[in-house]
């Protein structure tokens, strides 16, 4: 018996220690959160003008990214960049090293966090010089000293004047200093199937379709018509971002999670539409969700920004609505944005002049931005360039049946209000949608689903309170 006990214990030890290993990662260091006094634009500009960056001493430029997008933008559009191999390049004498870590499962942020925490002690050649961030977790990095204010690089507000304001609001720290810059304006709208619009609404013209979905009550009426004709609008998850971008307060206020009224509107509107079979509950990017890209999917619309046109509608596949050029684009019920990538300079970089030049060239140089817009079909962060595109045939898109969406995209970008962003948005949005799916599918009451959301948040962000 004793022997058995021993072997049992050994067995249990081995199995238990398999997951025990997860709990022992040792992470040291406190996050340095700086509390600078709010500064006016003039003060910040004066600081920027006074900056003397000195000579670059670094031989290696480390760029932290999660995919190939920025690399290909730099390769194609940054002057003097020479590609060496898949993760290396050269700008003059400086070696460029691309530290590419997948975004999935938070791997990119984990890797970046570890690098930033070790920045002070890292060898010169290993220091992070540039890293990229997305809107959902922008404030996580912009609110810390790990990210340099652009003014410390000598970039003034007049350098950034042609950018859309929301792309700067999102990356301002508590003192009002802009901490990152983007070449994209990811304003989004409603992408509708022209054939279904013609059948149900009697028109496929963007302006007239826009009138039918101009606000949520009109949208809901149209949805009922669409459902009666045997189609669905889209998934409730498609409309979520439009509601969540137009909230009256942040997800987290004084360390407490607050569910905004507009988010609850999403819940109630969506439930009504799900009950009428006007909307589905499919998760974004799933197979069921993707069926709407084909005429057989019988789906009226998707919600998405400019990058959605090219990357998400399977335009190259035979038989898709996009391939036939039968999508149309209008602003939809409310302005919102989705995604976009920002360039940050890491504190402690030893190549400040080069970093400054990359940021300025890639995000403010109008000729480069025009190139990006026409070659890569990005909706770029320049009022001038978008204005030019809106008034020229260069902006016409085949997959939209020749429609030029830039006027709507530019109008949308002007209307975006991002004052209610918080560092917890990604987790809160994701968990809220997951929890509410149970309510929509009849597996829980609204209260139960809300409780589930709170529980999930307390697990994901243990430092927050939910009650």
């Amino acid at each position, binding site marked *: 018996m004793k022997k*058995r006990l021993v072997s*049992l214990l050994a067995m249990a030890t081995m199995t*238990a220690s398999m997951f025990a290993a997860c709990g022992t990662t040792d992470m040291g260091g406190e996050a340095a959160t700086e509390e600078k006094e709010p500064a006016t634009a003039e003060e910040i500009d004066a600081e920027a003008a006074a900056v003397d960056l000195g000579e670059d001493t670094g031989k290696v430029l480390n760029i932290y990214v999660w995919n190939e997008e920025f690399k290909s933008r730099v390769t194609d559009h940054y002057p003097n960049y020479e590609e060496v191999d898949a993760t290396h390049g050269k700008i003059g004498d400086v070696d460029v090293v691309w530290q590419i870590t997948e975004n999935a499962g938070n791997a990119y942020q984990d890797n970046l966090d570890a690098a930033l925490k070790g920045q002070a002690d890292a060898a010169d050649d290993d220091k992070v010089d540039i890293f990229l961030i997305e809107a959902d977790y922008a404030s996580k990095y912009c609110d810390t000293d790990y990210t340099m204010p652009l003014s410390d690089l000598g970039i003034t507000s007049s350098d950034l004047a042609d950018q859309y304001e929301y792309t700067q609001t999102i990356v301002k720290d508590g003192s009002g200093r802009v901490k990152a810059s983007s070449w994209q304006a990811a304003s989004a709208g409603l992408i509708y199937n022209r054939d279904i619009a013609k059948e149900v609404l009697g028109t496929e013209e963007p302006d007239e379709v826009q009138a039918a979905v101009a606000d949520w009550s009109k949208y809901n009426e149209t949805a009922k018509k669409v459902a009666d004709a045997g189609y669905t609008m889209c998934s409730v998850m498609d409309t979520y971002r439009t509601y969540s971008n137009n909230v009256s307060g942040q997800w987290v206020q004084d360390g407490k999670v607050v569910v905004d009224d507009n988010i609850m509107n999403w819940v109630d509107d969506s439930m009504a539409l799900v009950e009428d079979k006007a909307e589905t509950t499919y998760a974004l990017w799933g197979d069921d969700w993707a069926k709407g890209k084909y005429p057989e999917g019988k789906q009226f619309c998707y919600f998405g920004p400019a990058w959605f046109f090219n990357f998400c509608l399977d335009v190259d596949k035979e038989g898709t609505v996009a391939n036939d050029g039968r999508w149309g684009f209008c602003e939809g019920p409310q302005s919102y944005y989705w995604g976009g990538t920002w360039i940050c300079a890491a504190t402690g970089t030893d190549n400040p002049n080069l970093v400054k030049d990359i940021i300025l060239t890639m995000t403010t140089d109008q000729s480069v931005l025009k190139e990006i817009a026409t070659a890569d079909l990005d909706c770029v962060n320049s009022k001038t360039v978008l204005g030019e595109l809106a008034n020229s045939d260069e902006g016409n898109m085949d997959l939209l049946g020749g429609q030029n969406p830039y006027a709507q995209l530019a109008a949308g970008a002007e209307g975006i209000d991002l004052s209610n962003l918080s560092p917890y948005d990604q987790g809160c949005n994701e968990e809220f949608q997951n929890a509410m799916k149970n309510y929509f599918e009849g597996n829980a009451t609204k209260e139960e689903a809300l409780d589930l959301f709170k*529980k999930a948040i307390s697990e994901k962000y243990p430092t927050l309170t939910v009650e």
Partner: protein
Amino acid sequence: MNKKSKVVRYNKWGYIFLLPFIAVFLVFQLIPLVTTIYNSFFLHMEDGLTVVGPTFIGLKNYSTIISNGDLPKYFTNTMIMWFMGFVPQILLSLLLGAWFTDPSLKLKFQRFFKTVIYLPNLIMASAFAMLFFTLFSDMGPINDILKNLGVIKESYQFMSHVWSVRGLVATMNCLMWFGNTTILLMAGMLGIDPALFEAAQVDGATATQIFYKITLPLLKPILIYVMITSLIGGLQMFDVPQILTNKTGDPMRTSMTLIMYLNKNLSVGSRNYGFAGALSVFMFILTGVLSLIVFKVTGKDDKDGR
């Protein structure tokens, strides 16, 4: 004298051969185990770049786990899904094992079939779960077939109903592991002295009688082994439901297992080291206790002191 020193020298080699194992065991198992228990007494968590702790808080993590009532729920989920998969799995394995080892059946292509039934185990669990997710999605092939056959009119949402999700998880686990179990049971069956079968046949026993009166009792040690390993594996069930339900354990967390719960507290954005440590200790105890129970119950009338 001479003889004695020789024994000592052999002993030395024994220890030397053990060294690599002990080193690996210490570094990768014992030290993590001890530090996990140590961590469980601290308040230590991270939100992104914010770090709280570590502060010593004694048994508070443990009392939180006991009081919030999540542990029994996810334990029940885990056990239900394990049981739903284990029962068909062991029945299937016994049947296949009995067929394969029965000399009177003279089954052909045995090697081929043994390979085939083992194959599902070679697929990564996550890939397998992805496959099932696609197969059973609302517009997936299974729903298409059922609709075309006229069994259902509208797509059945497999992922939105408690028992269909649990059933799918159980089916996958069963499919993945029955080949492995069959091979273990066959080894056990082949280890039984053929003279016993012959004697029984001479005495006029039927195949059913032989199976129940001879094969099963003599197979007990292997059955216990299979049960315990499966139970421990079942408690650690993670990848299949995690992928199938997209991390949520939906609907309403009825398919969330213990390890998925642990993962919730120690993954993207959330690193609640202390709490997760305490959770791990609970599971450690749970695994030990369950294994002991299975061992005691099934080994009760085992008199020959194996």
